[in-house]
């Protein structure tokens, strides 16, 4: 099987390709040049929206595409272009690495959100809006192109050597928390996510699957275990400051939206366990241990 990975030079892309290249023929696209990738992985440093990509897609004659969307302004445009390529070159399989943040953290969320829960993450948070739109576009495209086997993975709080909101939050010297709130958290190890992608490719199962490591724990206990002292701030202040930064176009100093520091956004992973036969290797204590190692060696 020939697998094409987008954003292959991201840390998550590298991790996925390092697992998949042993089983499949792997190629990837990224706007950056790739380093630390396995030698047998072909990397094309170009934007998917460029016309030249069509020639490469035709030559690659891929069987599956793994798309790792980012939260940039052009991510929706990039994904639309990718869907067009998938349709034009009759690619049979698309795995979209979405995120559990698309469900949104809300006071009326069930404790464990199932895959059929509405994705409301964009209604309050502009930061999740692109991801929500990509997720919805993927589902709509399945109706237009039913020959393509679509799998959407929605991992929750990915930790590891990657750039994710939760990792950026833990890397802060003094992370902020919402005063008077202590939501429950699940964590997903990046290796488990990469493994889930590999399992999805092999199983050929289609549909939406939540991914998370086993176990859950309040945020305060995670921070305590990491030896991090947080700064509790009233939630309206975090929200206002974050929105002001967004409006001014400056770098947002609040990597994790305030809603996720107030309300639970935990997922039910039983569907992935049953259908994909996916069992995470890292439980919450091991995920915390990974975070501890990363922040200890690199940032403190």
């Amino acid at each position: 099987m020939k697998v094409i990975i987008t954003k292959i030079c991201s840390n998550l892309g590298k991790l996925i390709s390092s697992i998949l290249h042993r089983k499949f023929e792997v190629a990837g696209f990224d706007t950056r040049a790739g380093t630390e990738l396995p030698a047998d992985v072909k990397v094309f440093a170009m934007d998917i929206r460029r016309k030249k990509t069509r020639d490469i897609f035709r030559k690659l004659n891929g069987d599956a595409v793994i798309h790792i969307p980012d939260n940039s302004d052009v991510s929706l445009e990039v994904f639309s272009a990718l869907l067009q390529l998938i349709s034009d070159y009759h690619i049979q399989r698309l795995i979209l690495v979405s995120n559990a943040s698309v469900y949104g953290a809300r006071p009326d969320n069930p404790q464990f959100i199932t895959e059929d829960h509405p994705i409301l993450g964009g209604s309050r948070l502009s930061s999740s809006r692109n991801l929500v739109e990509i997720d919805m576009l993927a589902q709509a495209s399945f109706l237009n192109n039913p020959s393509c086997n679509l799998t959407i993975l929605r991992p929750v709080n990915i930790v590891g050597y990657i750039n994710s909101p939760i990792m950026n939050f833990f890397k802060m010297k003094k992370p902020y928390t919402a005063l008077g709130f202590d939501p429950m958290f699940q964590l997903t190890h990046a290796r488990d996510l990469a493994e889930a992608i590999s399992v999805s490719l092999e199983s050929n199962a289609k549909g939406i699957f939540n991914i998370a490591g086993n176990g859950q724990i309040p945020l305060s206990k995670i921070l305590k275990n990491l030896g991090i002292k947080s700064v509790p701030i009233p939630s309206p202040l975090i929200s206002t400051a974050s929105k002001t930064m967004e409006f001014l176009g400056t770098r947002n100093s609040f990597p994790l939206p305030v809603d996720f520091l107030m309300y639970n956004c935990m997922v039910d992973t039983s569907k992935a366990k049953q259908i994909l036969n996916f069992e995470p290797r890292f439980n919450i204590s091991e995920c915390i241990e990974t975070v501890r190692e990363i922040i200890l060696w690199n940032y403190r």
Partner: protein
Amino acid sequence: MEKSEIKGNEKNVTSGGSLLDEWLSTNEPILPEPILKFAKRALAPDFDRRIELIMKRYHSDEFDPFGFDFNFAVYVVLIAGLVYRYYFRVKTIGIEKLPQGPFILVANHSGQIPIDGAMIATGLMLDSEEPRLLRSMVEKWAATLPFINTFFSRCGQIVGKPENINLLLSRGEAVLVFPEGSKGIVKPFSRAYILQEFGMGFMRVALTHHCPVVPVAVIGAEEQYPSLANLERIAQALRMPGLPLPIQSLIPFAFFLPLPTKYRIYFGEPMTFKGNPDDDDGIIEEKVRVVRRTIQTMIQKGLEERKHIFW
């Protein structure tokens, strides 16, 4: 950085000695030792045994999915127990009828703040033959309140969603629901002990899990905060489910303390219902009406038996 272990409600349960004493000696005490000793003695002669049973039942290597934290809840039980025994002097009637496995307690809601839920839960902990941790369903509004939401979840209370009740019942737990919702708790004193409309969610869940429904009538809670009115418009503006105006708010130095009414909690016979949980509302409503009528009858009986509000 030292490697620390994740501590939750996963306290090791070993034989020998009092588990509670062992636990108290290994955890940072929130309350001073003399107060703890006094509280334990004052609540129940077999208080340690009861807590041990709860600890064994909820022993797990994982933190409770709903955020229940024994380290925190044990102190809440001690304080709530003192209020239960000596402030409201709660009398439970029929608590021996509670079934062993999972069940749904359905109670009337009153008293402006959910003290009635706390007293029922404490009753199950202190006065039931087999002590049980009761999971109460709370309004989603409570989840938006700083500190309150954390307090509720650490005590094992849960936002009232059918998915959450389903999960709890499948784990064999006991669940408390107030189908009147906020309409019941904020009603003015003129409508005391008159049940409001019931929601139907609990019946669908009971039918799904084939679990018994236990009707509960709480007498005494209506008078703790006699409410003159419900300031609905202000409540709507503040996005609150209701804003009652209790008499205490008009009396200087009353400090919003509830009146020390005597609580009587009546537990009815467990009721089992058969049918399709996905039936039309009309069919489900008939079953809900049976529960509502039973609770209303129990309330009337309780009011007739009561000689005085305060004793």
